[in-house]
């Protein structure tokens, strides 16, 4: 599949790769330069491969209170929430952002899990007697604009001077654009949902205004520096929120709300998980990659995501390790055992 911006990427000299069935730009010449542009200035990402799913508020609220670990009952109009869908075993079906509009909820879900998520939502909608309630807007585009100067540049491009007043995880609807102050890079910025015509126009305006087009490569190194999980790698259906550092998304408040997976995660809350997800940095030269073993006195773990940090100039990783592990460790990178240690996340904090 191709996003409606595909020819614009090719014009910019993008190297395209297949990702979850989509032809996506991995970089436009240099992943490192795109990464630095987002940390220092502003970059834009075509993330139209992700899916927008609309669910009417009634009876959608009851459905989403079952499906999501966060409680949408507490979500105000104009706000978004990072949350999870769990299976009965407490495994993570997907991570997503849900926004509440005046008449409907909007979910933005991962590209690789879209069909699975739609089937999961439909299955539970049917049980509630509201089958067919979820509407997948496959025609919509999503552009993320991230970096310290992103808000100002988007405000100029879309003539929304007050864009900086939107609180994080809030959104505004301005003409044909849905603009949310969210992102996946650790920087300030917005994610804009709109139709293809508006998306092409916005993309061209932004790149003409000096916003650097950035590909999936930079998106991955940016999110990893920010300590953000990637679904399918750092968390899957086989892992629970406690061993993925995302248990904070669970809203336990309303004890009478039996969200899917609640029994399982309540048990885990008391019993504890044998493993945890930690940040690891290498203290020698080398780059940890997914699947590398992590050795320590407390036992052996595995790298779930790894990269070279362009900001820090050393190798960093998220790793699932025994719960007791801390401090120094060694990472098996190809034929070498490389010294590293666990560190506090995020690896890179935004400059305030």
């Amino acid at each position, binding site marked *: 599949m191709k996003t409606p911006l595909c020819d614009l990427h090719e014009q910019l000299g993008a190297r395209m790769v297949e990702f979850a069935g989509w032809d996506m730009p991995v970089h436009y010449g240099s992943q*490192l330069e795109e990464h630095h542009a987002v940390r220092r200035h502003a970059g834009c990402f075509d993330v139209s491969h992700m899916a927008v799913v609309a669910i009417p508020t009634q009876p959608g609220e009851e459905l989403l209170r079952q499906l999501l670990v966060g409680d949408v009952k507490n979500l105000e109009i104009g706000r978004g929430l990072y949350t999870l869908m769990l299976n009965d075993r407490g495994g993570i079906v997907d991570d997503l952002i849900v926004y509440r509009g005046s008449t409907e909820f909007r979910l933005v879900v991962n590209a690789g899990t879209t069909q699975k998520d739609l089937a999961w939502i439909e299955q539970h909608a049917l049980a509630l007697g509201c089958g067919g309630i979820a509407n997948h807007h496959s025609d919509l585009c999503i552009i993320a604009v991230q970096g310290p100067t992103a808000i100002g540049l988007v405000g100029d491009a879309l003539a929304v001077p007050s864009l900086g007043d939107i609180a994080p995880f809030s959104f505004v609807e301005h003409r044909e654009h849905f603009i949310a102050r969210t992102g996946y890079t650790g920087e300030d910025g917005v994610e804009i949902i709109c139709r293809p015509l508006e998306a092409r126009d916005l993309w061209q305006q932004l790149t003409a205004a000096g916003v650097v087009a950035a590909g999936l490569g930079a998106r991955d190194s940016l999110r990893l520096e920010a300590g953000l999980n990637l679904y399918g790698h750092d968390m899957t259906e086989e892992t629970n929120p406690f061993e993925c550092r995302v248990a904070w998304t669970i809203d336990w408040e309303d004890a009478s709300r039996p969200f899917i997976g609640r029994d399982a995660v309540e048990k885990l809350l008391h019993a504890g998980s044998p493993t945890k997800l930690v940040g690891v940095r290498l203290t020698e*030269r080398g780059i940890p990659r997914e699947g590398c073993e992590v050795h320590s006195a407390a036992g052996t773990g595995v790298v779930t995501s790894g*990269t070279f940090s362009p900001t820090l100039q050393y190798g960093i990783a998220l790793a699932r390790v025994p719960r007791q592990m801390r401090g120094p460790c060694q990472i098996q990178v190809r034929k070498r055992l490389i010294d590293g240690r666990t560190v506090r996340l995020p690896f890179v904090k935004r400059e305030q």
Partner: protein
Amino acid sequence: MAEFPPHLHYAKTHEWVRFEGDRAIVGISDFAQEQLGDVVYVELPELGLQVEAGDETAVVESVKAASDIYAPVAGEVVECNEQLDAEPEIVNQDPYGNGWFFVLQIQTKEESNDLLTADAYASMCEDESA
């Protein structure tokens, strides 16, 4: 588009060789650096290492992946490009010039039979990227 200077010899594993008397200078091709993306580390061999053609001799690591660099011919490692330690991006910027990896002292030049001409290598790359 990747460039393939005609005066060089190429290995199927994407190294290039330039022969200067009994010295063989080795690097990776423009096509290879393009495929790798930004190079962030280069692991160079020890001086004095004896290698056969096809031996893993160095490692180049990009943001995307790590790749072995194989000796295109047999010989002894007599020189390494230390500049790549501090500035690995030279491999991307100047793969056939300042981005060379190491120099092998060779016994005979006959082993270069397995190497490809620029034209043959270029068409191999074309097939790979198709």
